[in-house]
Structure formats: structure tokens, C-alpha cells
């Protein structure tokens, strides 16, 4: 997924605080950033807040000439990850998963829905224990549906490195989930 001239132009306008470009960049990346944060923290409202914070941090960084060098999306994920880590640090003792987040889908059977939700929460908690890059690969591939090539482009890595991260992520998740069972 080579960065297009159009994207380059958009990013240039972002650096110039162009409101339209800022809106466009938010639209392009907020979903992915939200997913990443959500699957690390498992809290929808928190993910929403922190997603907004990621983009504000982006603005602040641009303002102080501390913007990305190579991969914009990789840089954005790093901001998101730092916010997640910061949140963990400050709220370590309060980590809970609320069943208020239960998603009722399909048959709307409350029992099945809760079971499904519990499984999702278990997975999210496990993802939250992965390294930043492993977690990113999992969310980008399994939640957002990106290909290895696209993930590699976003993270500024080779496809081989992405496959390696994927393998280690699966192995780590297996260990984490086994311990919990």
C-alpha cells in the first residue's frame, strides 16, 4: 500500500492545520485508532475519549515540530499506544470490564449474548497483554481486516516481520488464554 501523492498532499495540509485536511485525516484513521485502543482497554467510552486525544496529541506534536518521520499511521499508533500505557499506569488497580458493553446481536438471546460478550472481553484482555506491535498486528489483521502488506506499510515493517509478529502474537495469546482458563 504505497502512500499516494494524494495522501502526501493531505498530510502536508495536516501539518499546516488545514481544517478540512484534519477532518479527512480523522475520518481516515479514527476507526483504526479506536479499534486499537478499544481492544487494548475494552472500554468503549474510554476508547472514544482516547481516540480524540490521539488526534489532539497529533496536532500538538505537529505544532511543536515533533511529527512523524516515515510512517504517519505508525506514528499515530505510537501516540495511541502511549496513551494506553499511560492509562494503564494511572488506572492499574481499576481495570474492570463492564457488562454494560454487551452487544446483543443476531438471535438476541441474552444468555448467548452475554457468553459471547464474555468471550470478547476475555480476548480483549488477552490482547491488552500483548506487546504494542503484536497487539497492533492482531487488531489490524483480525479486527480491521488489513492484509499483511497493508499492515507492514502502516507499521513501517516488512511483510516477513509482520508474519513473525503475528506468529508470536498467536503464541502469546494462546499462553495468556490457557492461563486464564
Amino acid at each position, binding site marked *: 500500500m504505497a502512500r499516494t501523492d494524494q495522501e502526501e498532499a493531505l498530510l502536508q495540509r495536516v501539518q499546516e*492545520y488545514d*481544517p478540512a485536511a484534519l477532518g479527512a485525516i480523522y475520518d481516515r484513521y479514527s476507526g483504526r485508532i479506536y479499534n486499537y485502543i478499544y481492544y487494548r482497554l475494552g472500554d468503549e467510552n474510554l476508547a472514544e475519549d482516547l481516540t480524540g486525544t490521539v488526534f489532539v496529541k497529533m496536532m500538538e506534536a505537529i505544532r511543536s515540530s515533533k511529527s512523524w518521520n516515515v510512517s504517519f499511521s505508525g506514528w499515530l499508533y505510537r501516540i495511541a499506544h502511549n496513551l494506553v500505557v499511560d492509562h494503564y499506569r494511572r488506572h492499574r488497580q481499576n481495570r474492570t470490564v463492564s457488562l454494560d458493553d454487551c452487544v446483543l446481536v443476531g438471535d438476541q438471546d441474552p444468555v448467548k449474548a452475554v457468553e459471547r460478550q464474555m468471550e470478547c472481553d476475555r480476548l480483549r484482555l488477552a490482547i491488552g497483554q500483548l506487546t504494542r506491535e503484536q497487539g497492533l498486528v492482531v487488531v489490524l489483521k483480525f479486527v480491521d481486516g488489513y492484509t499483511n502488506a497493508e499492515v507492514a506499510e502502516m507499521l513501517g515493517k516488512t511483510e516477513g516481520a509482520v508474519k513473525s509478529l503475528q*506468529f508470536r502474537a498467536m503464541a502469546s495469546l494462546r499462553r495468556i488464554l490457557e492461563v486464564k482458563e
Partner: protein
Amino acid sequence: MEHTRPQDLEEALDIAIGKLQSGEAIEACLPADPSLAGQLRPLLQVAQSLRSLAAHQRDSSRALAAARRRFLREAARLRAPRRTFPLFGPLLRRGVASTVVLVALLVVLLAGTTMMASASASSLPGDPLYRVKRAAESVHLALTFDQDSRSALKRTIEDRRIQETRDLLERHRETTVSFRAVVDSFTGPTLVAAGLTVHLAETTTILGPEPAAGRIVIVVAVTRPEGRLVAQRIQTLEVTPTPRRPPSRAATTEPASVEATVAPGAEITATAAITPSATPEDGLPPNAGLEVTPTAAPEATATVTCTTSPTATCLPPPTLPVTATPSAGLHLAGLVESIAPDAWRVAGLDIAVGADTPIVERGGPAEVGAFVRIRAVRQPDGSLVAQRIVVEQLPSEAGTAAAFAATIEEVADGHWLVGGRRVAITATTAIAGEPEVGTLAAIEAAREPTGELTAIRILILAPAELLVEMEGTVEEIVDQEWMVDGCAVRLDDRAVIIGEVSVGQQVEIVGLQEPEGDVLRALLVLGEAAPLPSPTPTAAESPTPSVTPTRRPD
């Protein structure tokens, strides 16, 4: 026992995950090798579980839309430069294009008030806002007509360039700077000017006579991260420095004349005509990049046009002109003290009003006690003749009207948020144009005793995103079609060109993107400083400008 390489496992897992994601069952995804299959099976089970996450994603679009609004509001706040004057920051932030508009708005809205913003005042060369700072300086210079003030301002700007260089060196930032200063000493490898030590490299070009103590030099140099200042070019001027406070002289600069028109066809046109001095004061060459110098024509104009929507609440009057030309056009505002058949008395002035003088009763009936704005022309005998009268809503406190231009951030019932300021919109607010978030708007408002602003009149100028700024090297000039860093730039008669422009020179351009997308229609071109004048004996002996002094209007 055969050992499986990690890469093979990773590759095998990736292939299996690919199959899994295409809907195959786990067993069908596993490789034929039982050993490999045994290692991958539990990992594929994890991958299968992860697929359920995607299947049960909650729709976050609504939440993200709300977060988007908050982000853009916050972004607007962050965009706001560190202001030293609160009114024009948001507009100046838009760059030099905005300052073209600002020149118009300043006169249109403030009726001659010469307040100028110092947006991005602390920015340094290389900062995104630095061009805004330089453009603001240029406009400030262009609007400073008093000779002493102008000279003082130029020296302030020169000092600012030197201080910027010091700041960059202290911060170990690498960028190109230029400044003008008097040489303290010159030893060959180094030159000291204004207290700055400039190192000469082999590639340093020295133009003009050899630098010597007491001479004026223009230095173009690079600030190195290690804190050294390395010269690229040093130009020695064959003039002698003058005292910091020169004696007052007659003005040499034509004033700017600005006119804005709201045409009956609901088209808003703001025209700024700048007719600056072509000759520097004090016999000195113009400060690099700061002197406003006309090129092709003695007077150039820039026009910013936007068309209002048919649904816009554009109210009369059809025209809103303000002039400050030597033809004695005046813009008056005040309370009507008396109305006679052929003359009105407004704010203590008698103004002739003919039967054909347009009177627009926007804010109420034209009667004694009404607050009016009048465009008038001073006759040779000194009398005033009204050209147009607009009855406005009476500001709650005379003299506390506010005028500013900024980006619309929010449009709500009863109020707008413009450049971070809440402005009340009433039934009598005249709005020309279609308000949209992100659009530049000029606001004229009354300040209530509570401090709140109530909009009297709003001109929607142009969607901010339509204004494009670029900086590059002129590669080709063919009539009105230029190539700048590979970008086609089209100029028409309305484009303002400040400074000299030729092939190979660096220019800053502000314009509108043409519909075809890859062509920029230039509104404003900032070229390099005007060429240094040829050294002549009179330059040193007599600092008197060579142009015919022009008297400013009273």
C-alpha cells in the same frame, strides 16, 4: 528429528490464517505435515476466536462522529497562534492569503483603523507560522504611512531578524536566515555583525566591496545545530549607516485604497489595491523580503470573490464601499443629529444628502437618533457629499463596535463561534454569504455592556480550504502562466505581485485552486526583495528618496 525453521512456521501459520479468514474450517487449513499441523492447531484456534471479535464489533461511527467534532474544535483552538492582539489571529493564521483579505477588511470594517495583528509573533524561520509573521510584517509596513513610524518599524523588523537568528542558534536549529546589520569587524574567516559571529565557508559568496567595520551587510546564512552561523552569501552595501532616528521627511508612500462591494447579484468582491513606495527610505536598500514594491504596474489589485447562495440571508445594501484615497473619500459613522431636505448632521458634521443618495434602512428607519454609516466625498471647498447612507442597528455603546475576521467554527441557532469568539446572531444581523464551518468570515459586531458580541453585519468571504499557499522556485514565466516547482500558476490582472520575480527566484504564492485541480490561480505573489539599488554617490550623501513625495490625505 527434523527441525522446523521459525520462518517456515510463521509462513505456514500465515497461510493457514489466510484460509481461515476465507471461511475454511480449522482442520482444512492445517498443513499436511502432522508435526507442523500439531504446532499450528492451537494457534489457529486462537485466530478463530479473534475472528469473532470482528464479527461482534460495535458500530463506533456515532461515537467517533461526536469525537470528531470535539477534535476539530480543539484543533481550531490549537491552531490559534499565540496572539499579541486578539482580533486577527485566526485570519492571519490562514497565511498571507488571509492578509490580502485582511488588508481589505481592515479598512472596510474598521474604517481606517490601522490595528495590525502580530500573529505567530514568536515563530522562527522554519516554523509553519513564520511566513504568516513575515506577511503580517509586510502588510504592517504597507499600512504604515507616517515616515518616521515606517522607518522605526523597518528597524524593528531588522532587529527582529537578528534576534531570530540568535534564538535559532541558541536552540541549535538548522535553517536558513537572512538579516541586515552593521559590521562590527571582519577578519576573513569570520565576520561579526550586530554581535553575531558569521563564519565564512569556501562556498560563501561575497558580493560588493569587502566587508569592513561600519559597513552595512546583508547576510544569508545557515544556523548550524552546533550553534555556528555559516554564511552562504554576504552582500556589502555601498551605503553608510544612518542614525537610528532619522529626521522626519515627507511621506513617500501612496496610501492603500481598499474597496469592498456586495453586488446586487449577491456576489461579494473585496479588492485591495496597494501602491507602496518604490524607493527605500534613508537611501538604504529595502530590508530583504520586507519592502513592498510594485513591479509590472504602478498599482496592482487583488480580488477575492465568492458567490453567495440564493438562500443566504443577504440583505441590502448592495454596496459597502470604503475608501481612503487621496480623493478624500470618507467613511463616517455616528448618530443622526438632524435631517434637513438637503443635508444631514451626523456626529457634528454637516453632510449634503441629495434626493438620489441611496439610503438603506437596514437597522431601522432613517431618522434623528439613528446610527448611520455614511460614505461621503469631500468637495474642493471642504464640504461633504454623501454617496451612500446605511442605517445600522445602534451599537449598545458608541465606539465599542468590534470588527474581526476569522474562521467560522460553529454555526448554531442564535450564535456562531468565530475564531474562538461567540457572536450572537439576531434577526437584524445582515449576513452576506452562506455560513459554513471552516469558512472565513468578516464580522462587524456591537459589544454589549456584558462583553458579549452581537453581530451587526457578516460577510462570508471564501471557504478557507480553497485558499492554497505554496512556496517554490520559479521555473518558467510565459506571459501570465508560470511554473513554480512543477506547479502551473496562472496570473491575471488582479494578482498582486510584491517584490521582484524572475526565473530561478524563490516565491511564495497564495491563490485559489482552479477547478481543473492542478492549476493555481494566484492572488498574491511574494517575490524576493527588490534588487539593491546601484550604489551611487547620492545614496550615501543624500538619503532623500528619489520619488516625488506624495502628500498623504489629511
